[in-house]
């Protein structure tokens, strides 16, 4: 199935058929599909004159931003979201890596140097009928997302039109089917790929998408929408229900019919409590890296009887249609059923590779039996039924509220602050109540001025979710027997501070 057949044509049909129905609920305000169509039309008219393929999009929480994504696709182009709350330096790095010339921004105020800025506030309103779309090959990217990179530079993951069409088709064949009466949650920043499923699946079905403002505390905003808007479809990161645990007695959600989780390990005990609020919902735990387009494995939660889990974390289930999974050892040799190793994925949803990064591509992708596989870095096993259990990471990547964080990126940025090669380590420590917390440990004696200056430096380069929750100072780092910094002993020291 092509991108046109799976995405563009159904979108246009949905926008025409459901004109009077609500498409979005953003910051307490409804917008209909007719309003969405008018916005898409006027953005397309301007975009049509733009020669470049890659368009940066300032990712605000408003109708014009969502309309821009649809307009970009209908004009055969690709969007690269820029987070307005992320540091300017990080956005600038992405713009430079991509060689971007054109930026769409629906709000005024941001500075992008000499580049062309399409300021949507100033565009005339168009009431013309929808024009035929600009065709584009399916191997062109539909979006490129930048994730944390271990070298201190964010890395670009292009997802092609073919990849996205394959995802939509796979979701349909898995049985996640929405209709025009659904009220759907969109709690993700547009720089995070779960956002794509959270606005695209409802738009394809003529349903209404309820967004969470980035200015609010996320789990509270989700609670409010669940409680007041009677949502019927949700995709959430597990930390939301973890934070809501003390308040679950206030939640009664008989309207919720399909509840999905993704983005981080799903604790079995949180899920059990949630299932008692969402009494009628079918609950699924899905999994997938950005590199394999949004998600590609699925586990259906059983209300009666036992659920598969490893160390209290619910199984991520079986591969969805179009994806293949294999577990390999350190030499990339496939392991037999039940053996733990690195999970690798292949199939229709697999990215062609990181943007202009041959070195990283050579490490992360390999061929096996004539197919190209991606090394997820996740330690898993697959049981006799084909269900996959997740155990942990092979590297220093961690996840906080679904955001992928390379601890080594934090270390790289912190190291740049010191001119004298002061050693730093970033350590993730489990806090009994609040989950993972990042500590940045510096080989120095404690100094208030240094703390302030270093924290200002980090804020310039790292998004908020990557900023260390705590800074610790140790005058001399302990070393292990091979002469390397002993992270384990450092964690023990800071635990006792």
């Amino acid at each position: 199935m092509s991108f046109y057949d799976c995405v563009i044509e159904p979108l246009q049909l949905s926008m025409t058929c459901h004109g009077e129905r609500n498409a979005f609920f953003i910051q307490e305000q409804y917008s209909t599909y007719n309003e969405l169509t008018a916005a898409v039309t006027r953005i397309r008219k301007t975009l049509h004159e733009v020669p470049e393929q890659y368009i940066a999009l300032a990712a605000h929480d408003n109708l014009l931003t969502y309309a821009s994504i649809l307009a970009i696709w209908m004009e055969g182009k690709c969007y690269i979201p820029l987070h307005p709350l992320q540091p300017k330096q990080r956005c600038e790095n992405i713009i430079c890596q991509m060689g971007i010339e054109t930026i769409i921004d629906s709000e005024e105020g941001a500075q992008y140097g000499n580049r062309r800025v399409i300021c949507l506030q100033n565009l005339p309103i168009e009431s013309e009928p929808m024009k035929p779309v600009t065709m584009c090959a399916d191997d062109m990217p539909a979006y490129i997302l930048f994730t944390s990179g271990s070298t201190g530079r964010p890395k670009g993951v292009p997802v092609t039109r073919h990849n996205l069409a394959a995802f939509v088709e796979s979701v349909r064949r898995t049985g996640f089917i929405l209709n025009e009466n659904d009220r759907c949650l969109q709690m993700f920043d547009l720089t995070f790929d779960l956002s794509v499923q959270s606005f695209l699946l409802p738009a394809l079905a003529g349903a209404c998408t309820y967004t969470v403002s980035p200015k609010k505390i996320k789990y509270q905003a989700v609670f409010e929408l669940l409680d007041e808007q009677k949502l019927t479809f949700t995709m959430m990161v597990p930390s939301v229900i973890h934070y809501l645990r003390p308040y679950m007695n206030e939640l009664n959600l008989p309207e919720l019919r399909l509840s999905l989780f993704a983005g981080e390990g799903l604790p079995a005990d949180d899920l059990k409590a949630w299932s008692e609020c969402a009494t009628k919902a079918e609950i699924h735990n899905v999994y997938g890296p950005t590199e394999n387009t949004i998600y590609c494995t699925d586990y259906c939660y059983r209300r009666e009887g036992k659920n598969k889990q490893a160390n209290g974390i619910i199984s991520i289930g079986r591969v969805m249609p179009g994806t293949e999974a294999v577990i390999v050892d350190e030499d990339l040799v496939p392991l037999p059923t039940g053996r733990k190793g690195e999970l690798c994925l292949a199939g229709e949803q697999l990215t062609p590779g990181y943007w202009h990064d041959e070195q990283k591509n050579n490490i992360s992708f390999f061929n096996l039996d004539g197919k190209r596989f991606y090394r997820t870095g996740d330690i898993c096993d697959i049981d006799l039924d084909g269900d996959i259990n997740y155990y942990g990471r092979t590297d220093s990547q961690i996840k906080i509220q679904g955001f992928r964080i390379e601890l080594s990126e934090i270390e790289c940025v912190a190291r740049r602050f010191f001119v004298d090669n002061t050693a730093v380590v970033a350590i993730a420590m489990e806090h009994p109540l609040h989950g993972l917390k990042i500590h940045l440990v510096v080989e120095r004696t404690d100094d208030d001025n240094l703390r302030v200056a270093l924290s200002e430096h980090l804020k310039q380069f790292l998004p908020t979710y990557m900023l260390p929750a705590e800074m610790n100072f140790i005058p001399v780092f302990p070393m292990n027997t091979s002469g390397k910094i002993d992270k384990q002993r450092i964690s023990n020291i800071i635990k006792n501070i």
Partner: protein
Amino acid sequence: MTKEEILQQLNDIFRRVLNNKLTLTYDMSAKDVDGWDSMTNLMLIGEIEKHYDIHFKMREIVKLANVGELCDTILKKIA
């Protein structure tokens, strides 16, 4: 207790939990305060509940527009 006293006590709690030297005002909300996110919010609520020996419902919390309204709610609960 007065609203001003509550604000002063909240200021101490916020400084301790967020580990910084901010000065709270009535019109502040999460978006105005560095480090006030999902995780620290949970810690802040926990500390406030412990300090005043009160309990918040999530339905109350989500309706609080700013620190001033938080002070008013606390005043009502301890009255």
